[in-house]
């Protein structure tokens, strides 16, 4: 049609020009069908062999995930076989997954936290993963750690394949602990037991550092405050879940909770732990030897390894109270709801298989593999300090189920903010419990939107 325009330049009317332009546009659109942009505009699927995958991994995790993706791509016909996208962690990510699924344009595979996929499943936004689907790629339920696999179930059905468990752990600065006499001859930490044992260890470390015994974020980081509290509280006999009946009731054991908060506050009030420090600040304290210990999820191993000259160890958090457990969550793979052909189901499962097979790469980022062939492999056992706390993954507490709970959720933010105030000495345990309960009651009284 462009040649017609050129043949009769004298009669080139506006209408002619528009027609020509439209035709050109249509042609460009058709020829560009293979491109991601064109398929987005036209709503056509990407190349039939391309798998789309969304995740929320940045930093060290992000880099390792890329390596794992390359393994898949190499085995499935090059870079065009996979289109991966990384989004902002937390609520923005889950909002995007939910809206895309509702809009009929989700990715083929997506990452979700174990605690968050339950709500996605209840909302009908992800597809059940049946034993038959697992069998397509030679997987079965028994291949995975029981703790993660069973906790992930929603009404006895499985909607995700967990790749890891990421428990809250204890980091320690060897140089400080050595001087404080807290190390065994092999460089591991002498056992610390009970609240008294912890206080003694912190006092010894504080004498060495001159600043603090242990560091944990107290400001601008609700999630860490929650992880610390949940770890301690869950270690007590008689601790009831904060939420029950799917979030309709707020049911913490008030006395145990107040007592736990009071102890947490006494640690910061006495100067054994800092009252005001944020996420990065708490790391820096341990990295620079101003604190002997540091409490956080195991994923900060990458950051710690990057610190030049830092000799550190990691182990499960001590048993402070009646039993040894820790707060945790897991990363899982889910299949957003959409019509799929058998081929597409198989391809999605193949991708997941590659990911769990590459569990050792993933484990280097600190996460404890859930895929038992990796977890029980000699290679993983030799991975230090990662394998030191692998056992912790079997003794974990996940967030109670509710439409407003899970990693980075309203529940964690609400309660974590109050715990932060307690640690900073700005609220008494009673005030914090009162405020948190009041605020959570609003959510509890709201009918679940799922």
């Amino acid at each position: 049609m462009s040649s017609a325009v050129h043949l009769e330049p004298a009669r080139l009317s506006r209408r002619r020009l528009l027609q020509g332009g439209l035709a050109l546009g249509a042609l460009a659109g058709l020829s560009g069908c293979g491109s991601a942009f064109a398929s987005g505009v036209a709503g056509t699927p990407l190349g039939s062999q391309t798998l789309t995958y969304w995740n929320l991994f940045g930093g060290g995790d992000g880099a390792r995930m890329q390596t794992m993706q390359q393994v898949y791509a190499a085995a499935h016909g090059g870079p065009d076989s996979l289109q991966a996208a990384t989004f902002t962690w937390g609520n923005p990510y889950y909002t995007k997954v939910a809206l895309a699924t509702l809009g009929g344009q989700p990715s083929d595979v997506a990452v979700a936290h174990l605690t968050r996929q339950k709500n996605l499943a209840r909302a009908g936004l992800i597809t059940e993963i049946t034993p038959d689907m697992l069998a397509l790629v030679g997987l079965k339920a028994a291949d995975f750690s029981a703790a993660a696999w069973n906790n992930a179930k929603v009404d006895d059905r499985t909607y995700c394949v967990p790749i890891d468990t990421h428990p809250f752990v204890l980091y320690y600065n060897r140089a400080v602990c050595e001087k404080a006499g807290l190390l065994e001859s092999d460089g591991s930490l002498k056992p610390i037991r009970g609240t008294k044992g912890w206080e003694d260890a912190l006092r010894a470390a504080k004498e060495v550092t001159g600043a603090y015994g242990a560091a944990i974020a107290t400001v601008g980081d609700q999630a860490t405050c929650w992880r610390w509290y949940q770890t301690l509280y869950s270690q007590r006999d008689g601790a009831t879940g904060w939420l029950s009946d799917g979030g309709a009731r707020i049911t913490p054991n008030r006395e145990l909770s107040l007592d736990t908060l009071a102890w947490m506050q006494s640690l910061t009030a006495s100067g054994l732990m800092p009252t005001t420090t944020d996420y990065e600040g708490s790391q820096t304290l341990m990295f620079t030897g101003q604190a002997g210990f540091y409490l956080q999820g195991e994923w900060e191993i990458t950051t710690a390894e990057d610190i030049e000259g830092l000799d550190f160890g990691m182990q499960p958090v001590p048993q402070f109270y009646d039993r040894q457990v820790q707060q945790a969550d897991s990363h899982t793979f889910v299949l957003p709801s959409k019509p799929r052909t058998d081929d597409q189901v198989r391809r999605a499962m193949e991708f997941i298989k590659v990911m769990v097979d590459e569990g050792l790469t993933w484990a280097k980022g600190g996460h404890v593999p859930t895929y038992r062939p990796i977890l029980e492999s000699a290679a993983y056992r030799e991975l230090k300090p990662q394998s030191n706390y692998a056992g912790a993954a079997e003794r974990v507490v996940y967030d109670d189920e509710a439409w407003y709970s899970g990693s980075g959720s309203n529940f964690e933010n609400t309660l974590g903010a109050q715990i932060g105030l307690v640690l900073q000495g700005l609220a008494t345990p009673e005030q914090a419990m009162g405020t948190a309960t009041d605020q959570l009651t609003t959510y509890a009284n709201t009918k679940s939107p799922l």
Partner: protein
Amino acid sequence: VSTRTSSATEPRIADPAESAATRAPIGQSRTTRAAWLFIAPFALFYLLFMIWPVIYMLITSFFDTTLIRPGFGNFIGFDNYAEMLTKAEFWEAMWHTVLFTLYTVPPLVVLAFVLAVLANRVRRGQWLFRLAFFVPFILPSAAIALIWYFIFTPTTGLWNSFQSLLGAADPSPVLGTPDLAMIGIAVTTIWWTIGFNFVLYLAGLQDIPRELYEAAAVDGASPWQQIRFITVPLLNRVTTLVILLQIIASLKIFDQVYLLTAGGPGTSTRVLLMLVTDTAFTDFRVGAGSAASVLLFVLILLVTLVRQLVSRRQSRRES
């Protein structure tokens, strides 16, 4: 266009009375139809994407509508409103929104006025100033956020480096300090949007007849007196318009907060529209989100009403 001129002018010459009674309506209905046809494409989109969502919002605010189920859900009367009005989060977000408005409206009106008066006095190269002040306004919010994120980067950013240069030992990160974050966002916004008010003022200034200034100069009025007694009063109407538009724009703050701090640190910059999106899209509670949205709508409506009253009094005084 030709239809209207012929039918409107001819009859008036022949018989004005007849034209009004019989012939004009024919022409008018034809032009009206044509007008509607021209408007239709836009009107359709406007109805579909502006009017209907507003109606939908009003309806859903009375239901427990959720994003993930089709339909409106159950009718729950004013429960969504009651929830919002008794929720600390809502009032906190409302306060942050109002605070942002308080931070941005005065500078955006006063500074825009000052810059316009100064630019208007420039004889040569005025285009440069007009361009310089207006260009940021045409940039998308994401670009603005990137620029200012860079400026406000803790320790190594432009602003913190400048503070260190002046001798500050440990300058606080603007976007990471609860008390400073909103000010940082306000500064970003002022730099970004001042061009719009500036252009409105400049247009207003150029409408003021030069003779007034000449006469005042002849009478011995100082430049300051000229501004005080000629420019300011004659720009009154522009000022009320600018203030109204600015208040509305500031109450609708979302992009800059979302991109620069995501409501943080903590929730210290979480504004109302963020609460709305969190409730409606993250928590799937479209009904509750709509109620919060309607409450913001009511606030903006009140501001507009006040403006209406003020301008009515203004015009009464002028006449």
